[in-house]
């Protein structure tokens, strides 16, 4: 296994929203998709995904429905709702701002001060 980073607290929800925004997914699919889009750099405990999914459904950001997966198995598929899409946009902006700020802070050189 490559060196995987523990995800920051609070970012799991954002990752799930992003993963689902690319197309409806079942739980295991969300896990695969996050692995795929992060280049397998982020470690998510499999079971820990579900409390987060349920929380997002409760907040009305995701909606769930049962369907059939590519393996021909029954699975629960999640897709983004309109508030979910809006939340993803906001959180992405917020994250980018934060990342830029921290990035530039960490990039600071002695002569710039």
């Amino acid at each position, binding site marked *: 296994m490559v060196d995987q980073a523990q995800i920051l607290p609070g970012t799991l929800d954002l990752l799930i929203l992003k993963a689902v925004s690319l197309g409806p997914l079942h739980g295991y699919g969300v896990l695969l998709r996050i692995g795929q889009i992060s280049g397998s750099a982020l470690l998510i405990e499999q*079971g820990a995904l579900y409390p987060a999914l349920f929380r997002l459904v*409760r907040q*009305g950001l995701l909606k769930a429905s049962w369907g059939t997966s590519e393996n021909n198995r*029954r*699975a629960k598929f999640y897709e983004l709702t309109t508030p979910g899409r809006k939340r993803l946009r906001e959180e992405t902006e917020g994250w980018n701002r934060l990342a830029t700020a921290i990035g530039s802070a960490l990039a600071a050189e002695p002569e710039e001060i």
Partner: protein
Amino acid sequence: MKLLAYLRSLTAKFFHHSEIAEDMNEELASHIQHRADDLERSGLDHAEAERRARIEFGGQEKFKEESYQALGGTFIETFVQDVRFGLRMLRKSPSFTTVAVVTLALAIGANAVVFGVLDALILRSLRVPQSESLYGTVYGADPGFQSYPNYVDLRDRNRSFEDLAAFNFAFVGLDTGNDPTIASGFATTGNYFDVLRIQPYLGRFFGSSDEHGPNSAPYLVLSYAYWHSRFQDDRSVIGRTIQLNKHPYTIIGVAPPDFRGTLLFVSPDFFMPIVNQEQTDAQNSLTNRSNTNSIFEAIGHLKPGVTPAQAVADLDAVSAYLEKAYPQEFAKKSSTLARAGLTSFGDDVRAFVAGLMLLAGLILLAACANLGGLFAARAADRSREVALRLALGSSRQRILRQLLTEAVLIAMAGGAVGLMGSIALLRKMSIWQPFAGAPVHVPVSPDAKIYVVAFVLALMSGLLFGIVPIRQVLRANPYEIVKAGSSGRVGRRITVRDVLLATQIAICAVLVTASLVALRGLARSLQSNFGFEPQNAMLVGTNLRMAGYSGDQVPIMQKRMIEAMGTIPGVEAVGLVNNYPPLVYAAGSRTNIFKEETTDLKPSNVALRPYKYDVSPEYFHAAGTALLAGRDLSWHDDKDAPRVAIVNREFANKMFGSVANAVGRYYKIQDGTRVQVVGVIEDGKYMSLTEDPEPAIFPTFQQSPTSSSNLVVRSNRDPQQLGAAVRSQLRSLDAGLPVDTATWNRQLDVALFPARVATASLGVLGLMGAILSITGVFGMAAYSVSKRLRELGIRIALGGQRREVLQAALGRAFRLLACGSMAGLLLGILASRVLAFIVYQATPRDPLVLTGVVLAMALLGLLATWIPAQRALSVNPLILLREE
């Protein structure tokens, strides 16, 4: 939107509980299947792939639980779960549950009862509107005793009260046709009901406009209770004319059910206008300014914005005016205000109830300490269960919540049982009439407040003893416990449980001390010398006015009654005393006495204010009072003879220096008459058993006749038969005369009542303390024996002596008991000042009390450790070691 979604999820969860669980199971299973498919594709065989997938997923139950919580609304859900689980656990150990519930029920019940009494007596003593601004006036040491003219001046001259009403006692023969019976009520001023702002239940009340001078308002208002018992709720009584002491009165109204007059403990049968009391009592009470017995208490609402302190200053100013205007009749005393209804008992009752509340609180604290110990022991026993739950992924917070829920469950059960018991008790108390014939009752009526108090107490104590084992749980290391078993170490250090037990024992020792002190105080007041012999003495109360006698007829009839009593077989002596004899209904009255040489008979020149009892010849013989010097009164000392009296030793000493000096000397009374002392008797108790020696004078009743009197009949005969004989004799003299017979001992009950109540309540609390300390020590000893059974078995197997085994098993319990008892005893001694408020001559330094406490605590310890000790000694090492 969010809220809506949340609510939807909540309701969905509530109504589709099992569906959600199934849904979740299926989803997780589907996840694992997909993972297994992937793994299988990467080359693992089917079974191995599924196994690996399950392991990778992690603790399914844990995530399910977390997901479930993520759905929201788990608080109630978890709570219900905790309650269910708690109930199951409690059902599994019924003896623990029973002990805990009973302990708490006792403690909370005691608190609820005391609170009920406190609430009734102090927080809302009178059931009248706006009672918080209602005050009674108190003059000097005698609560509220005033004369009617003084009251009128006070009413008209003060600037602090909205209006001032007043009342006095009235004892009359009430005749509705042909059945004269003694009834007791209040004679009130016309504005009484208006001042109290109450409305009649039936008919109307009399008012100020009904008063037009002496005997102008022959109206009667009945109390609801009397209307119920004497007139059977007959609504047609309004307008009916009845006889009070042979005078016609019209019943005009019935007071509301919850109104029981304006004096605590006393519930009058009726209310009559005070302007008519002259007619029924034949006292010149409306115009005589120096007769301070004509008003018992003046009450009124303070004007808005007037503080009690300002009102007192105002009253003092009125007193100063009165003293200047009427120097002969009025002596200024400092005024105070008291909560209406409590004026005459005020501080004593308040201190007593407050003291009881304190002790009841201590009981609850002791019970909490007791249960805390039990819970800690139980938590230790359950450490394996707790460890397993921790190991399976439960959070410590969840386990603590569970334990607290159990504690609160027990507390609630205990509180409910205690509350039910206390309400039953309070109900009994409210209909309890401690003395037949006297309108005395304890006005308690449990209401919503008591439920709240019991609930809060239960909740608080549940949390209190529930948190005791928390540290234990938080520190628990699941791996250690699961590995090593629950036997644990037996530490030498002092644990929380030890401290709790010692505290509890200390508290219980305080309670035991208090109850022993009270018992001793009661015993002492019973043994003290009353100055008369109540044994074998019957009191026969009559009021000749009730049968229409007046003037000179009264002493003639009284003499005939005395003679008639003397003819009853078995009667040794008969005497008569005007009004009541000493120690009955606390009804003594004082009078002003001047030195013989004093000429200006103003209040400041009063030499003594002794109690005064007008008695007949032979009274002292009948009462069993010893004559120390001089002679008894004789029938020749009649109204034409020189005025004579007998005095007690205290009076002789204070007035004349010595007993021998007193005989033959003179004193002066208020009207200037010289009275010769012809004899001296021993001292006695007059108003209460706790009083210091008081001076008293006994003039002859023939020289100041009064229609109300008590005959003292001394006889060895059975009181029942004697009473019947007395009544039939009196009936043959006058069939229309109401008669009241009771033994003197029975009448003393009233005087002994406070001491008895105090002793009974302290005794009950002490008993509860004793029970608590037994259960506490027993729990601790039994627990430590069961924990160390293996060790004890080894000791016995190795040849340990009984003494050593016991020492090992119970030494600690005994040491704790000793420490706790010593601390409690010391505290008890320190608390003697508090106790002195409650009980007569409370001194825990009494060696008898000290030994009593030590003995009692030792006995309790022995009792509590008996069973555990037996168990420790009967350990069979073979069986025990094999089993482990």
